[in-house]
């Protein structure tokens, strides 16, 4: 296994582990996100801004929490505390608008709901376990290129060149087809042949820049597949 392969494998394991953490905590995350947003609203309110609409939106979005048992006692206490602070800020204003009065009564309704009587035993989620799994160790297969391997590559390139040059008049057409094959089929042989042809053309003063770009792109795709 090359260094990149080992790193990519580790990257995959870690990413998959963190994805599972997120899935496992999905419900808690949604609660925390809601509490965090309410906390942001309370801070804005403390700075003297009108947060009536924002609190209204928050209630509209999270009212279902009253019926669904997703909150722990700690969450309920937190929410009540934050709502209490918002209510205090609303009451501080000399003229309370009808919308603000409505929000204030909504806060009271929330505080009086059964939600506040939730017990920790009822809502505490069961302990779940995340297991970090990885594939069994594999002994690296050594593929040290030998002279024989290289000679085979040259031979296969020759065969491919003959096949691709069938009915073609110019080497550029062959190169075009080899690059297409490398790009679309992620064919290593076609990639090597393309590189040979490009180098050959470059030695003969052809402008090879566009072909080099295509070769790099084909190589990138080939590496992704590998």
């Amino acid at each position, binding site marked *: 296994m090359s260094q*990149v392969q080992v*790193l990519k494998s580790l990257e995959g394991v870690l990413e998959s582990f963190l994805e599972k953490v997120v899935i496992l905590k999905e419900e808690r995350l949604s609660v*925390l996100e809601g509490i965090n947003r309410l906390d942001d609203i309370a801070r804005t309110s403390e700075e003297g801004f009108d947060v009536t609409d924002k609190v209204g939106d928050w209630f509209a979005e999270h009212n279902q929490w009253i019926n669904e048992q997703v909150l722990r006692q700690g969450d309920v206490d937190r929410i009540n505390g934050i709502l209490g602070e918002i209510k205090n800020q609303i009451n501080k204003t000399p003229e309370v608008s009808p919308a603000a009065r409505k929000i204030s009564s909504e806060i009271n309704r929330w505080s009086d709901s059964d939600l506040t009587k939730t017990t920790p035993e009822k809502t505490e989620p069961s302990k779940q376990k995340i297991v970090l799994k990885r594939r069994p160790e594999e002994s690296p297969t050594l593929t040290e290129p030998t002279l024989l391997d290289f000679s085979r590559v040259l031979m296969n390139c020759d065969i491919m060149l003959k096949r691709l040059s069938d009915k073609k008049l110019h080497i550029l057409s062959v190169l075009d087809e080899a690059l297409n094959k490398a790009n679309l089929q992620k064919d290593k042989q076609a990639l090597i042949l393309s590189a040979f042809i490009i180098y050959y053309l470059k030695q003969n003063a052809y402008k*090879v820049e566009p072909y080099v770009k295509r070769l790099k792109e084909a190589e990138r795709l080939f590496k992704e597949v590998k």
Partner: protein
Amino acid sequence: MLNTSEKAYCLALLALKHKDYRAAVEQFDKAAPDFKNDREFNLYRESTRLLLAVKQEVEMIEDEDRLEIEEAFPNG
């Protein structure tokens, strides 16, 4: 209200949800003063830090590979 560390822990988990690992590490660092003895927190924090380091290393190696091609065709 939530204290700074609680808020940061919450934002770190949300960043993980959005696969923004760099932001997650930053928020975990902010949350660390109050959670450094929490095993679960440390597991998530260290896993995310390791993942970020691995991603940077892979990126660096791939950049080196790209340079090799450019050297092979200096005027290409």
